């Protein structure tokens, strides 16, 4: 019976600072945890006392990778609090920006963070020499994803043009049509990506678990959902999210751990795929099949494959949204908002999973209460459970291999640690 001691300090190729600690003595796990060492930021404290119109611009700064995601959940929450309705045009533009961000985040994860593991190199840099075509393709795809965000919202990181009620600057039809063409032209690149992935081997590991994602009757839920759906606990109305998402503080983490009524659960691309498979386009389903992914899949490493499937979905979504926008004719919209007291919850299924924002404002539009629940926070507990199931299966490997498997597992979840480090609920008296 062997001893294993692993301490991966500052896991690389993840967003934010985290450590993996494993201590096995005589074959028995004494300690195994994912430590979150990111400096806490206290976003809830930033928000209190600020104006309704600042919420989205403040909270988008929680995360550079999914700032359009935060903006989306924040705007929905604030619009619900103030009773603001948005137009079809605004909805489509937001969904288009959201698709752009989902694409860029998934490409970043697949090509920069995961591919090096599968190709046996420490990062994307050596690939510039060994696989120049793959690197150029990755850059091309990511640039397109970012250009979608830039055209619609000004920039991808911390979007300017996404505001409560409407877009202050509506993109020009000609610019959208140029993007549509590029989206169509990117389909061959997507197929090459799929071909590349087919040649690579992901670890085989399964653990039966609960999946949670937003669900919408009319669409594959990303920007918005109608309910929260769990494979174990059924549907929960979005305003009642706290029934599904239950938090507790754990000492080794600046992020609070989350469980459902029945235990840990997973959110993210794989959860969405498992729950909303039926609503995927045929083209996306084909890719899933080609890559050996079918619902319900219990291998968290397959999250990356689910992301690639979503890339196909978002690419085709983008084309559809642009067609609809151009057909409708783009026009400037009124931005005036009547401010009144209220409370509202907003939810989006961002690249890493379900994100909730909740605000209460007073009748001057000042934020008096807020709560933010971030996907990675929900996943942390599940990752630890996975690690506990995985370690006994790979105990015969070397310490380096065990460490790599654990790191790859963490990476598969595509965690966003800076997001996760301030998701604790605030109780205001």
């Amino acid at each position, binding site marked *: 019976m062997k001893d294993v001691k692993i301490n991966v300090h500052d896991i690389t190729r993840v967003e934010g600072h985290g450590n993996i600690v494993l201590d096995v003595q005589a074959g028995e796990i004494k300690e195994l945890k994912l430590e979150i060492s990111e400096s806490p930021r206290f976003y809830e404290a*930033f928000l209190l006392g600020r104006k309704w119109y600042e919420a989205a611009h403040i909270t988008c700064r929680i995360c550079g990778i999914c700032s359009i995601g935060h903006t989306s959940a924040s705007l929905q929450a604030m619009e619900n609090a103030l009773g603001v309705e948005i137009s079809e045009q605004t909805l489509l533009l937001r969904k288009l920006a959201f698709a752009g961000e989902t694409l860029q985040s998934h490409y970043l994860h697949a090509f920069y963070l995961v591919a090096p593991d599968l190709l046996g190199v420490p990062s994307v840099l050596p690939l510039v020499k060994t696989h120049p075509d793959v690197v150029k393709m990755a850059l091309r795809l990511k640039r397109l994803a970012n250009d979608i965000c830039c055209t619609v919202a000004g920039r991808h990181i911390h979007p300017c043009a996404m505001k409560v009620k409407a877009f*202050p600057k509506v993109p020009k039809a000609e610019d959208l049509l140029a993007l549509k063409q590029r989206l169509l032209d990117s389909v061959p690149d997507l197929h090459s990506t799929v071909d590349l992935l087919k040649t690579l081997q992901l670890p085989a590991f399964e653990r039966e678990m609960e999946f949670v994602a937003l669900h919408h009757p009319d669409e594959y839920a990303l920007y918005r959902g109608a309910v929260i759906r769990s494979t174990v606990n059924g549907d929960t109305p979005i305003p009642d999210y706290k029934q599904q998402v239950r938090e507790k503080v754990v000492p080794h983490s600046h992020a609070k751990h989350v469980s459902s009524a029945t235990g840990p659960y997973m959110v993210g691309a794989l959860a969405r795929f498992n729950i909303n498979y039926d609503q995927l386009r045929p083209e996306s389903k084909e890719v899933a099949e080609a890559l050996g992914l079918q619902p319900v899949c219990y291998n968290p490493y397959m999250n990356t494959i689910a992301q690639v499937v979503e890339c196909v979905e978002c690419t085709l979504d983008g084309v559809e949204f642009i067609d609809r926008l151009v057909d409708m004719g783009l026009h400037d919209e009124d931005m005036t908002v009547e401010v009144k007291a209220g409370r509202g919850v907003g939810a989006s299924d961002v690249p890493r999973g379900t994100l909730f924002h909740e605000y209460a404002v007073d009748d001057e539009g000042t934020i008096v209460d807020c709560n933010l629940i971030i996907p990675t926070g929900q996943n942390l507990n599940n990752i630890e459970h996975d690690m506990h199931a995985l370690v006994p299966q790979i105990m015969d490997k070397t310490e380096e291999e065990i460490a790599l498997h654990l790191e790859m597992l963490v990476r598969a979840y595509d965690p966003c640690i800076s997001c996760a480090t301030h998701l604790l609920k605030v109780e205001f008296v």
Partner: protein
Amino acid sequence: MKPRVAMFAFTCCEGCGLAVIECENELLDVLNLIDLVEWREGLSEKAEEYDIALVEGSISTHADEKKIKEIREKAKVLVAIGACATTGGLNALKNRYGMHEVKQMVYGKAGEQFDTIPARPLRAVVPVDLELHGCPIDRTEFLRVVRDVALGKTPKLPDYPLCVECKKKENVCVFFRGMTCMGPVVRAGCGAICPTFGDGCEGCRGLVSNPNENAHKETLAEHGLTVTEVLQHFDMFNSYTEDHLA
């Protein structure tokens, strides 16, 4: 020899590091000019030695403080990138409260376990050679700086108000659309991206060295803001002051 560049992140959203790699069209050219030797978010390589450190994030814990000093010792050139690192950014909003109060507010009783000190820009802790402003930094400006450094030039960053860039783009001033903007007192360099997309500037690049704050307070009041709102316009990205060191 190409300069060895390492990127580090402190308290922040890591968006500036991301902005660097969002230079997709230019990334291969940039990699011809520099050797990227460490970047936790995207690479597993670690470097013991480097010439230039690009550092994002504010210093907001004792651990941060220790680490930035180590980086300063190793780096020949220390570049602060992004609002968190140059002005304290949004993080400094927490400095409005006592640190104990803040922990209570967000984490309740469990908060005491956390190491947190008032958020500071890098220059409040170590000498900084160059500051690249913005939340996030501007890609074009970043590329220009990389190029200038490679040429041995001292990059010239603007110290005039944003309105200059906004007017060159012929944007409709957002004040004429019933909105408000920090442009007249905020440093240019982002191409006035927010007003270009119809939103007022929030001041993420910090104030110019000689802002006419009084004039701007009057302008904001003239456009219907209350005193609190006026102050909030100023402090969103610029609430760090030397007093926070106390």
